[in-house]
């Protein structure tokens, strides 16, 4: 019975992925890609990886979807030549097929894994969710560098602004009718999203959730409020904005250096203070993640009155 469910789910995943790659029309491809993300999130839940399922639904389907939809809208407004001349090439199909076959072969040839037992070391980490323990304690290096990768990507996006627009508000100008659906959602969704996002971060220490999932929900709140014109788009030069961006990596880095000062290894947490240290780092990271992700999605600074 469960096999039938998984087979059907995987058939759906492959079907919508195929539609996203080979279907007619870029807009439709984007919609199929969002659907794909939601199906994959269900797949992760079937594998018992609820933290990944949340991340995939919020980031893979949600934010990436908004990003692609916004880009499609911008390309249309620019009246870019989006006609597609399709030429299905045999060599590309052969390359894709060969890689899929090689991976399929690798699955049956792989030796059984011997994972390190996280559960045994869990009591010393200060948190009850093993995924949070890995992200913020055992492999804190990965997470620190990941938060810096986010910043680097944002700097890259900002640099794509034209020189004259550098100090213009970030992102395109949104127009929401005061009595329209968007304005209504802009007032209705943020309180729910705020509570849910903060809950995800708080609950992430012991059960499903975490700074990245919670931060993404908060980024969604910021985006909805900006699109409904309830929140004015910020400018690159605002000091508060810059402080929010570096708060998370900064606090993380300082905690690592503090450990060195106390005679421990860089980024290691003493079991006595691990719980409170992780909560402080996660709170700071959440703010930076939420702001960085929202700004990544709205894009570089743009001329407020294009076509002047």
């Amino acid at each position, binding site marked *: 019975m469960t096999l039938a469910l998984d087979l059907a789910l995987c058939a759906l995943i492959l079907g919508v992925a195929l539609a996203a*790659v080979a279907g007619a029309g870029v807009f439709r491809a984007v919609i199929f890609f969002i659907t794909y993300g939601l199906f994959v999130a269900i797949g992760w839940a079937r594998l018992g990886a609820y933290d990944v399922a949340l991340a995939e639904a919020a980031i893979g389907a949600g934010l990436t979807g908004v990003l692609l939809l916004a880009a499609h809208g911008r390309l249309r407004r620019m009246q870019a030549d*989006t006609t597609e001349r399709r030429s299905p090439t045999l060599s590309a199909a052969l390359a894709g097929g060969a890689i*899929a076959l090689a991976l399929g072969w690798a699955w049956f040839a792989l030796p059984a894994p011997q994972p390190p037992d996280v559960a045994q070391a869990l009591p010393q980490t200060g948190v009850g969710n093993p995924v949070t323990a890995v992200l913020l304690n055992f492999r804190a290096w990965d997470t620190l560098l990941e938060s810096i990768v986010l910043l680097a990507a944002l700097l890259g996006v900002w640099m794509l602004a034209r020189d004259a627009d550098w100090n213009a508000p970030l992102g395109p100008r949104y127009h929401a009718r005061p009595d329209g659906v968007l304005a209504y959602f802009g007032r209705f969704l943020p309180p729910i999203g705020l509570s849910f996002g903060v809950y995800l971060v708080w609950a992430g220490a012991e059960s499903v959730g975490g700074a990245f999932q919670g931060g993404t929900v908060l980024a969604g709140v910021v985006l909805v409020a900006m699109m409904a014109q309830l929140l004015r788009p910020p400018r690159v030069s605002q000091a508060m904005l810059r402080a929010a961006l570096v708060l998370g990596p900064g606090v993380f880095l300082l905690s690592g250096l503090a450990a060195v000062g106390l005679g421990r290894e860089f980024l290691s947490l003493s079991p006595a203070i691990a719980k409170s240290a992780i909560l402080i780092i996660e709170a700071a990271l959440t703010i930076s993640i939420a702001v960085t992700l929202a700004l990544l999605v709205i894009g570089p600074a743009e001329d407020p009155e294009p076509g002047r």
Partner: protein
Amino acid sequence: MNLTVFALTGAALVGLGVYGLLALPHLLRRVIAFNLTGSGLFLFFGAAGARVGVLDAIPQALIITGIVVALSASALAVGLVVALARSSGKVVLPDEDPSP
């Protein structure tokens, strides 16, 4: 058995993504194909990590990191696509443009 289903789905997604990256000239479609490749690899990796019974926390944490990094890369890629369209009016690379 169920894990094999997910792993082979992941393998097929990687193949589909590579095909899309090579064959589709429209750059937004390429960003989508790039995301499919990454997501298929995560699925393969996740299924491999679940073979010990439940999915281990370390692959889960690495996959979450990967999903976030994929979004940052996609945001930069989409920004470049929009900048290219702004300067050239096209959403295909110049050397792949059949109507120069």
